Every structure is written in C-alpha cells, then in structure tokens.
C-alpha cells in the first residue's frame, strides 16, 4: 500500500527526531550482516547519509520511490549498491543495508513514542521494501556490467598478434572462435599488417578445439580480407582429427596454404622468400 502524504511527513519527523538512535541501531544491524568487512565509521557515514536521504525524500512529500522527490534517494541507493557490488558483497548483504531500517524503526516505535501505530508502520515498511528492491536491481545491473567488462577484457587478452620474423606476423588462436572474437582477431590482424608492413600472416589454430563451419567461415573471411590488403595468409596447427573433420564436413580452403604446425608454416614462408629480408620497411632504411 502506498504512503499518504500525511504518513510520509510523520515518518520524516520520526527519522529526524530519533535520527541519532536510528542511525546507531541501523548501523549495528547492517554491521552484523556484513560481518565486519566494512569499517564501522565508513558504514555509519553511509547509513547516516541514507537516513537523511529517506528523511528528505519523505519530507518533500514523496509517496512513491519513483516520484520526482525521491530522485536524490534513488541516486544514493544505486551508488550504495554499486559500491557493494564492486566490493564483492552478495545481493542479500546489499539489500540488508536498506531492510535494516525497518527493524530500527520498529524498535524506536516500540520504545514508547506512540507515533501512529501499525497502519503507519506497514505503509512505511512497503516504501522501504521498494527501496530495497531498487537496491537489488541496481546491484544486479552493476554486476552484469562487471561481467560484460570482464568478458571484453578476456576477448582482448586471448587474441594477441605477434611478430614471428621480419615481415611475418602470427595469430595464435586459443579457445572458442565465436563471431565477436573473430571480429576482434580480424581487426587486430589487419591493423598489425598495416603497422608492420608485413606481407605474410600465419593463423595458428592449434588451440581451437573444434573447427566447425562457422569457425571455418570466420577464418576464410579473415584470409580474404588480408589478401585484399596484399598479404598472404597461411593456416597452421591443423591436427589430424581436425583435418579429417574438415574433409567430412566438406569445407574447402581452396588455394590457401595450410600446414600442420606453426614451425612448418614459418619454414614455408621463409623458403618462399628465400630467407631474404621480408619487410618493405627495412629496405627503406
């Protein structure tokens, strides 16, 4: 049930009047839940700000958390859950930071000051519930953002382009080659070809567990793009079981040179160029 504006202002009064004891009790309750992983001064500061946030929102006549008057409070809540999420607290520990307010208020009400009774408390309680749910949502969003960031970092980590020899670059592919990674690999490779002026690129698939038609298609596209830029591609690391699977699937690599190992591919390139200096850059010097 929503708060009436009357109730809202009564609670604002309560939060102000019993500010000190509420903050203390609230901090205690939250500290129990967090088991000392946050310093009590830090926690008290957070709780005190949150109490003020609630007070101001209710004072301004906010009856729903989605109200204009609650904008400040919402910002505080998302900041709090963002902090908790990044510090590795779980969802319960995050939500308890808000829920504990209810217990604290209940205890203050119990202590004599008859401030309206049960009806008020239930109404206020549902307001706090919504605040806690909002915290939970923000928490999940922050965690999801963290996971997306990590996935992206992993993508970056797992696709290096290395210079093997003067004029020869290599891309050792490891793991699953999905569309997103294939795109990163292609961009990296093409950029490195430009930067180093290399006429040869070796794509090594030793670390790719299964070459299906999608993986093959990504590799073929990368080779074609490199060729358009004037570079020759060699695919290496084709193990016996992969070779048999590719034949059974019916994938054709056409006139693209393929080798069993990276060493074979390098030998092939060096043989082709008669072991001369391969780089255009070097002859310019």
């Amino acid at each position: 049930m929503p708060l009436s504006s009357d109730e809202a202002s009564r609670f604002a009064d309560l939060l102000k009047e019993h500010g000190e004891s509420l903050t203390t009790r609230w901090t205690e309750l939250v500290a129990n839940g967090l088991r000392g992983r946050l310093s009590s001064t830090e926690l008290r500061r957070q709780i005190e700000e949150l109490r003020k946030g609630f007070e101001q929102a209710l004072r301004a006549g906010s009856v729903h958390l989605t109200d204009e008057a609650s904008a400040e409070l919402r910002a505080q809540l998302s900041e709090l859950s963002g902090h908790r999420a990044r510090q590795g607290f779980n969802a319960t520990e995050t939500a308890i930071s808000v829920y504990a307010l209810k217990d604290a208020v209940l205890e203050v009400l119990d202590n004599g000051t008859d401030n309206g009774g049960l009806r008020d408390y239930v109404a206020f309680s549902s307001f706090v519930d919504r605040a806690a749910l909002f915290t939970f949502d923000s928490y999940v969003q922050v965690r999801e953002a963290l996971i997306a960031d990590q996935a992206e970092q992993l993508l970056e980590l797992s696709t290096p382009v290395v210079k093997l020899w003067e004029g020869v670059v290599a891309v050792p592919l490891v793991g699953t080659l999905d569309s997103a990674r294939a795109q990163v690999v292609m961009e990296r490779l093409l950029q490195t070809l430009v930067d180093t002026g290399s006429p040869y690129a070796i794509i090594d698939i030793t670390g790719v567990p299964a070459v299906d038609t999608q993986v093959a298609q990504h590799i073929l596209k990368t080779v074609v793009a490199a060729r358009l830029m004037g570079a020759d591609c060699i695919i290496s690391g084709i193990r016996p079981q992969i070779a048999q699977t590719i034949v059974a699937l019916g994938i054709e690599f056409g006139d693209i040179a393929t080798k069993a190992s990276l060493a074979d591919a390098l030998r092939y390139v060096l043989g082709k160029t008669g072991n001369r200096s391969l780089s255009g850059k070097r002859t310019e010097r």
Partner: protein
Amino acid sequence: MSGESQRLPVSTDQDVVRVRQLVRTLSVAVKLSLVDQTKLVTAASELARNTLVYGGGGEVVVARVQNERRAGIRIVFADQGPGIADLELALTDGYTTGGGLGLGLSGARRLVDEFEIDTEPGKGTTITVTKWCR
C-alpha cells in the same frame, strides 16, 4: 539401450558452447577415439547452432547408449521452429538460407554414424544423431 541422459536448453551462443563441452565430456567417458570425439563435437556444434539460428532455439538431449556390442552417444536436437520445407534441398552441400557455408546439416550427417531427421513445415524439427565406438 540404457544410460543417463542430460538435457540442455539452446537459446544463446553460450548454450552452443555448453552443448559442445557436454558432448566432449561424454565422448571421452565412453572412450570414443580422438577423431570420433572431434567429429561428434563438431556435428553437435553445427546442429545446435542450426537449432538456435533456424529453429529459433530449442533443446538438446545427450545420452549414453549401448547396443549388444558397442557403446555410443546419442544426441537429439529439437526445436519448435518453422521446420524444413524441402529436406532434399536443405541437405545439399552449399545450400543455405542463412549466411553460412551451407555445409552444416549435410556435413553433420557425414560426421556421425546414424542420422535421422523429422521435420514438418510449421511444426519444428527434430534431429537424432548417434556415434558408436569402433
């Protein structure tokens, strides 16, 4: 014919990876040769991706099977998608309605020992493949 079976939903690219990993684990457990493991995993990858891309998602059931002489793996790919109108055409090398190489379905058939397909336009597609130990 017995053995445990495991069910996996297929609704994202990550699910296709999970199917591949499960098939690989079970292939190792029934002692398929390395070549057969790779063939089955690749076939599973193709068919699971078809389930996702053309069937609009579905589910995969992977089971260990046993006949009188040999152990093997049976995988069922089921979706409630649009079905395949012209099966013969769909099984032709190089034919695709998507952007792929057109080798997934026909290639997967060559990678396994038994291949059954049950499809009707508008009613979805179920593909059952089996690979036996040699």
